């Protein structure tokens, strides 16, 4: 199996893709747009470098075979090897120049938040590895020793509907309590190791939250919820949060943030795709096999006393099983 890690780099000054469009509430456009534009940027950078080196030496860059098509891509795309990188069994899309990253000031000056999305199709048993890997990448990118808040989002949960009471009730039957509780020790481990100062859940309604709190060792200090009108917190949830001293934060992410089809489109040969996947229809070469998105982590670093977002980005992990 090949492991892929997709990344956006710092998107905070990345232009319109990060701006919420009216009517596109709770979409994953920020993730998909910024991945796409980061792929294109990496390809263009390569093309520009190539043009420069052609001018000077009229040379030719040799692609070493990565198991990825090393030939010049279809439709003028640069070869995958030129803008992706393979390291420790992971294919980075695009290649990451770790040296170019990091925060400008001391890590203590920031509030760093990471939100980890476990995706629906990936095995629950692998979640400890996913969590560890996701957080490692965030800390490496920011060159920070820990995140201040680690938010965990489990698949299959949301607050739906106009009536918030209704949403809270529905929520009670969503997700999978056993899977969520089985996953939590791995998250607690990250906390104990000092990598995540506070833990946070996402989309837990009052009933689920009450059940969850009874069965875990390190409690979540925060619950992040999405409400159409954030003035209408379901009263049972508001009450429970108050009793338990849990802070309720707002978000506008969607839970199924990277569906399988979307990932294939992002990496595929189609219009706007990165051209990494083989396409039997067009005969384009590339990665073969079944591609499964496993996790996504969104991270932000905000300068605490100035309210300035200095860094925001995503990593996404996926597995490719050869057929």
């Amino acid at each position, binding site marked *: 199996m090949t492991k892929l890690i997709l990344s956006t780099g710092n998107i*905070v*000054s*990345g*232009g*319109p893709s*990060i*701006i*919420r*469009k*009216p009517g596109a509430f709770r979409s994953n456009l920020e993730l998909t747009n910024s991945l796409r534009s980061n792929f294109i*940027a990496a390809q*263009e*950078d390569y093309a*520009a470098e190539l043009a420069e080196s052609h001018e000077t030496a009229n040379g030719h860059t040799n692609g070493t075979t990565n198991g990825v098509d090393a030939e010049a891509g279809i439709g003028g795309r640069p070869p995958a090897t030129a803008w992706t990188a393979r390291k420790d069994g992971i294919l980075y899309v695009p290649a990451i120049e770790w040296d170019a990253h990091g925060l400008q*000031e001391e890590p203590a000056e920031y*509030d760093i*938040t990471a939100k980890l999305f476990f995706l629906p199709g990936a095995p629950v048993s692998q979640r400890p590895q996913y969590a560890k890997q996701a957080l490692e990448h965030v800390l490496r990118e920011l060159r920070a020793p820990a995140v201040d*808040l680690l938010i965990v989002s489990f698949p299959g949960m949301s607050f739906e509907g106009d009536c918030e009471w209704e949403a809270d009730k529905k929520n009670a039957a969503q997700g999978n309590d056993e899977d969520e509780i089985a996953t939590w020790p791995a998250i607690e481990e990250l906390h104990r190791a000092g990598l995540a100062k506070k833990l946070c859940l996402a989309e837990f309604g009052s009933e689920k939250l009450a059940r969850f709190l009874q069965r875990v060792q390190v409690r979540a200090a925060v619950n992040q*919820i999405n*409400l159409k*009108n*954030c*003035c209408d*917190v379901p009263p049972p949830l508001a009450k429970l949060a108050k009793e338990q001293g849990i*802070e*309720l*934060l*707002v*978000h*506008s992410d969607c839970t199924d943030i990277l569906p399988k089809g979307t990932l294939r489109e992002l990496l595929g040969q189609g219009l706007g795709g990165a051209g990494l996947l083989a396409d039997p229809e067009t005969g384009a070469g590339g990665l073969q096999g079944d591609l499964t998105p496993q996790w996504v982590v969104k991270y*932000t670093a*905000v300068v605490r*006393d*100035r*309210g*300035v*977002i*200095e860094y*925001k980005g995503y990593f996404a992990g996926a597995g490719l099983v050869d057929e």
Partner: protein
Amino acid sequence: MGLLCQLLEIWNKAKGKERDIMLWGDEVEYLVVTYSKDDPKILLSLRQADILEALASDKALAKAKCAPALPDGSNAQTSQPPPVFHPEFGRFMLEATPGKPWGIGFKELLEVEPNMKLRRCIAKDHMLSNEYPITLTTFPRLGSPGVFTEPYYPPSGSRLRSQFVPDEIANPHIRFPTLAANIRSRRGRKVQVNVPVYRDENTPWPWRDPTVNYDLHQWPEDDDVRNGASPDNFIHMDAMAFGMGSCCLQITFQAKNLTEGRQMYDQLSPLGPILLALTAATPVYKGFLADTDVRWNQISKAVDDRTPEELGEKPLKNDRWRIPKSRYASNSTYISEDHRLRPEYFDPDLVVDEDIKQQLLDGGMDDRLATHFAHLFIRDPIVIFSEDLKELDLSKTDHFENIQSTNWQHMRFKPPPADNSIGWRVEFRPMEIQITDFENAAFAVFIVLITRVILSYNLNFYIPIKKVDENMETAHARDAVLDRRFFFRRNLFPARARVPPPPARLGRLHPEEDTESGDDFPGLIPLVESYLDSVNVDVATRCRLAAYLDLIRRRASGELWTAARWIREFVARHPEYKRDSVVGEGITKDLVEAVIRVGEREAKGERLGSCGVVGLERLLGGLR
């Protein structure tokens, strides 16, 4: 050149100042009026000094019985020390600021509104029972014939020589009458504040200001009106009080360092006219409906000390240069060393004192900032106190502040004080005061969030400075927010590293686009929402912030009225209004009474709804 020494002293001491945290402050200005149910007249109270005295001698300000709950149950108990009250130019005015600056914690943003209410309540508590602090920008009948102040003083005094307002209208501190007298004497005539009158169905046309007296012969300046100072179809005013007697909402930000301060100064500058139009609240002058909605140009004219030579009316003989703008005007410089600042954005007609600029350059200042200050220094200092001149103390900043504080551009770049205890600051000055503290808090918080958006997303709002000037004029039009379009940059986002920064792609922004996305211009409100989506905000805070953004979004779309539109509607629907542009005493009383009633309900934490006031639901949209 004491000023320059002081400025260079500040510069050399503070240019390396780093990592100051984000602090900010708001200033709310009030008119003080007398009102009682049975008295047919509403008057301006001239008891500023007594009120300030009462406030200053009350050591228990913080324990005042003023801690009203907001409709959502939160209250005004904040971490703040008691608010601070200040004198203002008009003797009928009062200014209040928070007891200490605000930070950027989102919960702290929510303390602003209760704190503003607390300030108003404390102010009221130290007034006579028939006095009220209100936040209309101007008193509708300031300068009308008859009695409009309490106590009454006759006009035509030696200081102002105004035929409409008495000398006693101004704060008696020596600074203020001196300022007014010096402006008049420098000009060689009185100031001329002429506002186009609004032409209604029954307004005689051409319209001649019926309150102008052409037969006054007390002062040489009484000749002004005989020499054409009062043209047809304009409301004519002749004193500094008509401008400087306006209330506004000013916000000051502390920057992280010099570079960030310069960036904020430049980037907020093009937003000034848009926020002026959105906060428009000034449709009445001297008892007549004006054809404009905002105070800006009136203040500009009210402190315009340019001589006929500087104005270009006479050939230059004694003066050094022609000066295109009043000392109160929209910005004339950009000051950042941002690579995105292209040469064509600068004002080609900028006047600078080249000698001063050279001295600043020699003193180690860079070209752009030296140009900025050398531009401010083309103005004479109009108030200098002899005690300051006796001993020039480099550890103080008074001399520099003298020039700085009598240059009123829509942004102000403020160097740290002599002791370096505060960082580089930027003041955002164009907004008009709003009737309720809910609205004032909404606009204050909005502009604070906009600065965070600009810095986070590294946005580029640069447009040619001449276009900002033009926008400032556009903002004056009646209902500019609905009917006019503003030059606005459409490509705000940074280009990728390899590409040089693109020139401004100018669009005509309709403020409604604040809420929509046209091509790649996302709109200001979606930018703020995207910012809030990217930071951790608790549910209750986000809910309250959403109400603020909602107010501004609906003002921009025209769904809700500006205060100017509300006042016009109030006048138009009043039984005494004869469609002749005249806002009489009866209308004024009912208008101010309505404002007082809304203020009382807001102070008690009651829902405002319509509370029996004409059109109030269109002003506030049921958000409070």
